[in-house]
């Protein structure tokens, strides 16, 4: 049995201009510990899909099962990292931010701070445990957000373009750190991005989505050994393949 099953998920937005399909009949599945990237241009419904997976939106048709259970709302089986740096709570230190989920679960203070510190070590920020978010750079804030989403040990990590607002150099560093984190934690990850190179660097498999309406265009397994070399021929071939899927649709449109 697959760990995550997305089956015929459809969601329609009601707008003043009429009903606009957000995603239509989207289906795919994930094995446990798989790293899946969803790639597509803006408006292809990839963030909508992630919000359905997170339980913030309910699909009009179809269903999502995680570990066999139908998703009906948010739950501690999923950790979420958003694109916006502002997702951290400014009134909490890095450590207190990471400990938030454990606090909600009722884990005693000493224990949850121990766990939170380990999570910060995982993203190499243990030195900044007592810093408030506004003293951290954007990249550091996103790493704290990753540690926070992992701290209460969810089975699945959902990430919505977490590095899109970072500069290119920092972004590459973040991708390497995330690849390390994934190797150590073996979480099932669904990672939304519009960056083709990022998808090839991180993913076991890439789902390509195209807009109007948002549908799955192709699924491309990335069969490259890790750590991956973004300058290798094979890496570039995969990028070309993904781009071909993305542009074909644009030409038809």
């Amino acid at each position: 049995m697959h760990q995550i099953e997305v089956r015929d998920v459809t969601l329609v937005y009601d707008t003043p201009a009429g009903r606009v399909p957000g995603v239509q009949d989207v289906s795919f599945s994930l094995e446990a510990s798989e790293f899946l990237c969803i790639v597509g241009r803006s408006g292809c419904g990839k963030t909508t899909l992630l919000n359905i997976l997170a339980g913030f939106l309910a699909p009009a048709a179809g269903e999502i099962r995680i570990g066999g259970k139908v998703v009906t709302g948010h739950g501690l089986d999923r950790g979420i990292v958003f694109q916006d740096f502002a997702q951290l709570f400014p009134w909490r230190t890095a450590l207190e931010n990471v400990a938030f989920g454990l606090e909600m679960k009722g884990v005693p203070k000493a224990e949850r701070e121990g766990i939170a510190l380990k999570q910060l070590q995982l993203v190499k920020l243990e030195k900044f445990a007592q810093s408030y978010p506004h003293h951290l750079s954007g990249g550091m804030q996103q790493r704290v957000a990753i540690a926070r989403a992992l701290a209460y040990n969810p089975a699945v990590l959902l990430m919505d373009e977490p590095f899109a607002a970072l500069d290119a150099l920092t972004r590459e560093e973040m991708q390497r750190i995330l690849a390390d984190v994934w190797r150590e934690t073996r979480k099932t990850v669904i990672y939304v991005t519009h960056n083709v190179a990022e998808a090839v660097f991180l993913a076991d498999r890439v789902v390509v989505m195209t807009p109007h309406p948002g549908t799955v265009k192709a699924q491309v397994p990335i069969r490259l050994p890790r750590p991956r070399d973004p300058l290798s021929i094979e890496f570039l071939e995969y990028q070309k393949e993904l781009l071909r899927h993305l542009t074909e649709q644009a030409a038809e449109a």
Partner: protein
Amino acid sequence: MRWRAVARTAFPFVVVGGLWEIVARSGIFPRRLFPSLEEVADTFLRLTAAGVLPYHALETVIRLVAGFGMAAVVGVALGIIMGRSRRAEDIFLPLVSIGAPIPGLAYAPLFLLWFGLGNVGAVILVGFVSAFPIILNSWTGVKAVKEIWIRAAQAMGANDRRLFRQVILPGALPYILTGLRLGLAQAWRILVGVEMLAAVPWGLGWMIFGAREFLNTDVMLAGIVVIGAIGLALEKLVFQRLEQFTVVRWGMMTS
């Protein structure tokens, strides 16, 4: 470096004091109506030593604390409820929006008729008038809490009670503090005004207004100095510290 900071702070006071002395000694106004700084300081010390000034000040501060305290509790609570509940917002926002711009002193005769001359009427008026900015700012603060904080907290399993205490309250704090600050200034103004209406015996406003009968401008000025000093102390010792300790430390507001 330290004395330079002191000098910079003192500079405007020295200039204004100097100009004051020039006018006082020039004879433009009769001496009785425009006393020199020395006379004001003399009166200040005399009234302080006699216990008159501290007593008036204490009366005023007690009324202020009572009225503003009520406004703070009710205002923050109502503002937050309005921010959280659509129905409460529909009911109270129009009322608060109409009431807020009305000068507080306009209500004074009504309140004095309803609640009588004396402390009760004065304190209720102060509480009523200073609640408006507190309500409006608390409401805005709740509305301004970032959606992403709420989402993140819900995703991490926060229930409604925890969401409120751990996210909405600290998230709205910059606005709530601003509201309290404005409310306090409002309370201060209306209180001195209502004391002048002779609604109460004692109090700085009453002292200042009473002093006009005997042309005691030095008493008036001593009273004004005390009002300014108390206001400044509340600002520096209470609000600035509260902000330093919370929203400034969190980077939600610059000092």
